[in-house]
């Protein structure tokens, strides 16, 4: 184990060694030109020097001299910057300001106070070996693309996810000043503990976004614990595919499974694990797809982890489409434009060429782009087809958006036209997670964050069907807990998805969509009546207990709409109080227990009070023990990330 000190010593020694052996010509040239500059400056300055040269100038005299010198010299070598520097420096308070002009000071301080998130640290590459199988496309229009693809593939076989070392290879410039961090995240305070006697009903919308997990991973790979507001526990849990019991054909589009298990971080409470497994419709019978790629080509997208990765990601996805599917590309930067009219997916070369020609530049007119994309989508849609706008952006909307509410309202309006909106986030630094969430939630879509090609593979290839084909719209979950059995409860995660109790039956209230074959998990921590973990004392003068059967722990109600339908359907099922120990319908509890480990991990990252002494080590053990078959290696990666978080948090 190398000690800290020797890291610094090693860097120092390496720098010293590398800086030796300079070229004498360059040194001589620099010294000579500098001397010339000196003479030229003296000549221009001599006539106006008012005091004997040997005496240091007083502060104000110096300032006056400087001003005079500059005015007479006019446009010679002086710049306004020099005026500013000179004046600032000679005032007693100016010592610090000397470093830079006032405008720059604000910029700097913004960068300093922001999360230590170094844009220049580059993107991580934790491509799974499967990526290496992607054939590099070569076509006339894409001169630079194949090279980029080759580059990434060369990086792919790294056994360690997110090897930062190789990330340096994809960095454009090591010397660029990291832009001030302007990331914003959507989150809310942790759900509070509810007392069942007072608030027996809990209502929320499902959330199948996965963006938070990818952001957490990206942060950890860069060597930082993620900012707490970036951690949305339900998105971390729902990132992983689970093999919950599938619904029977012909019934509801999904099947709920409830299990009650011992809370790992508190021996006196229980966790109620609620899983919804969506059905996987026959792939062959899927409707034709109309996809509008709405691509942010503003200047901020030029980072290698943004537009170039986006292009590669869409190329992967193109292989999943059928000849009958239609693709269109709309870009937006300062102005919005349709760069590819609706084109059958069979015309690969036209699509690839349009993709390759995209380049970044200008500011971001997100609103104009969305309007154009929805217009295009409206032209493409025919009955029986699924139309979806896929917005790819770093979320940095800085032009044309005077009112964020107006934008989300616009999207909500378009949602009723039947067009879905998915948001793919790229890059870090000015990732506007809050806007992305708002757009996707209002647009009946999902938000995913793509930081590596392997994540693109997961989102756009492995789970494309789920991402593109909804099987149930506006899925809402409501649980009524039985106060005779449950004293207190709290919902872990879903803070940004909370619904009012009355929203459950109101079909006009929007909620999350469930994609084909996807699953959703929600976990409640409950305190049974009589448990020593109960935090609130029972009321002495409470109303007499209602007629409650203590054989039921609670009552689960689900509402959803068939895709495109206006009215919802209801599914109800009681949760038996006897159901325990993670055994549900004879299924082993690996999936549930792994989800719980991730829930614990998310709470640790959020700095939650609820986990007590239970720490990363226990979370790692729990997750590692319940990885299951893990065919794609996601869970193994998660365990590695948890170990990384453990190391980072102990610093």
């Amino acid at each position, binding site marked *: 184990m190398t000690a800290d000190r020797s890291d610094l010593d090693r860097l120092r020694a390496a720098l010293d060694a590398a800086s030796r052996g300079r070229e004498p010509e360059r040194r001589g040239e620099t010294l000579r030109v*500098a001397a010339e500059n000196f003479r030229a400056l003296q000549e221009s300055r001599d006539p106006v020097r008012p005091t004997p040269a*040997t005496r240091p100038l007083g502060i104000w005299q110096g300032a006056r001299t400087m001003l005079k010198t500059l005015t007479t010299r006019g446009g010679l*070598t002086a710049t306004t910057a020099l005026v500013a520097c000179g004046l600032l420096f000679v005032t007693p308070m100016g010592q610090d300001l000397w470093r830079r002009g006032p405008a720059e000071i604000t910029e700097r301080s913004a960068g300093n106070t922001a999360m*230590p998130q170094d844009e*220049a640290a580059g993107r991580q590459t934790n491509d799974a070996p499967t990526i290496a199988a992607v054939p590099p496309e070569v076509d006339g229009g894409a*001169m630079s693309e194949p090279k980029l693809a080759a580059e990434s593939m060369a990086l792919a076989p790294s056994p360690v996810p997110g090897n930062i070392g190789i990330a340096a290879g994809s960095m454009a410039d*090591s010397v660029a000043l990291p832009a001030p961090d302007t990331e914003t995240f959507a989150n809310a305070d942790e759900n509070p503990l509810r007392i069942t006697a007072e608030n027996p009903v809990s209502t929320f919308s499902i959330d199948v976004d996965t963006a938070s997990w990818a952001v957490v991973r990206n942060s950890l790979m860069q060597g930082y614990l993620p900012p707490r507001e970036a951690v949305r526990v339900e998105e971390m849990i729902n990132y992983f595919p689970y093999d919950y019991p599938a619904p029977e054909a012909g019934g509801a589009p999904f099947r709920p499974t409830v299990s009650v298990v011992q809370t790992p971080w508190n021996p006196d409470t229980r966790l109620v694990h609620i899983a919804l497994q969506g059905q996987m419709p026959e792939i062959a019978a899927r409707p034709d797809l109309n996809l509008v790629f709405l691509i942010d080509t503003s200047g901020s997208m030029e980072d290698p982890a943004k537009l170039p990765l986006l292009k590669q990601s869409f190329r992967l996805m193109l292989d999943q489409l059928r000849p009958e599917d239609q693709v269109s590309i709309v870009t937006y930067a300062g102005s919005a434009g349709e760069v590819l009219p609706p084109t059958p997916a069979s015309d690969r070369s036209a699509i690839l060429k349009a993709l390759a020609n995209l380049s970044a530049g200008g500011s971001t007119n997100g609103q104009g782009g969305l309007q154009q994309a929805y217009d295009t989508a409206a032209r493409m849609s025919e009955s029986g087809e699924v139309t979806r706008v896929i917005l790819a952006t770093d979320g940095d909307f800085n032009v044309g958006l005077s009112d964020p509410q107006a934008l989300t309202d616009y999207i909500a309006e378009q949602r009723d036209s039947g067009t879905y909106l998915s948001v793919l986030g790229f890059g870090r630094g000015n990732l506007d997670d809050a806007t992305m969430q708002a757009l996707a939630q209002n647009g009946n879509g999902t938000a995913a964050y793509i930081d590596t090609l392997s994540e693109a593979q997961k989102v756009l290839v492995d789970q494309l069907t789920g991402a593109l084909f909804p099987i149930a719209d506006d899925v809402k979950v409501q649980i009524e807990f039985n106060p005779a059995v449950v004293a207190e409860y709290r919902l872990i995660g879903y803070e940004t998805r909370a619904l009012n109790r009355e929203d459950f039956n109101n079909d006009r209230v929007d909620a999350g969509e469930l994609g084909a074959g996807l699953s959703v998990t929600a976990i409640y921590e409950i305190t049974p009546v009589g448990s020593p973990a109960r935090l609130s004392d029972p009321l002495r003068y409470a109303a007499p207990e209602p007629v409650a059967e203590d054989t039921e722990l609670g009552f689960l109600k689900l509402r959803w709409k068939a895709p495109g339908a206006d009215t919802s359907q209801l599914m109800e099922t009681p949760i038996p109080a006897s159901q325990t120990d993670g055994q549900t319908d004879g299924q082993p509890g690996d999936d549930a227990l792994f989800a719980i480990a991730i829930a614990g991990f998310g709470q640790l990252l959020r700095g939650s009070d609820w986990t007590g002494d239970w720490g990363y080590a226990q979370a790692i053990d729990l997750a590692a023990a319940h990885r299951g078959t893990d065919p794609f290696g996601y869970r193994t990666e998660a365990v590695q990330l948890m170990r990384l978080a453990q190391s980072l948090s102990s610093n």
Partner: protein
Amino acid sequence: MRMTTSDEDLARAAAAGDAAAFSTLLERHYDRLFALCFRLTGVRAEAEDLTQDICLALPAKLAGFRGNARLTTWLYRVAVNAAHDRRRRHATHRRASEGWGDWELARQSEIAEGREAMDWLTRAMRRLPADLRDTLALVFDDLTHAEAAQVLGISEGTVSWRISEARKHLRALHTEEPST
């Protein structure tokens, strides 16, 4: 005789118009300045350009030198600021350059050049954010934390914090490559 004159006296003489004093001063500090610039940029060619930028601007800048600060402190501040300006110009230029294609070609050639030199040092330097790099560049020159703080115009505590941050970055680099 002149070689024993203090930096500060030389600087004052140079500010007063003594060309020989200016040359001596530059001669005396060029190597140390270059070493600093190298640590600031981590790239030899960049460091040479940066050193040149600083030297050429120095005659005009010397007018701002007050005798009561140590010349090296002042000079380092000039250097760190110049490095900042350069990074910013670089970033702006890159943004303004025509189209993604040109930029990508340039990037690819940079990668090709850099691959051989992609040793631990390069990766470590790239890994470090600019502010941490600046701080280390100064501390490695045997400046005390207080002096580095003065040069950077930040508090001493911030210097110490940045150094510990830099350690974390380097440690993370270890975690990723257990072999080193």
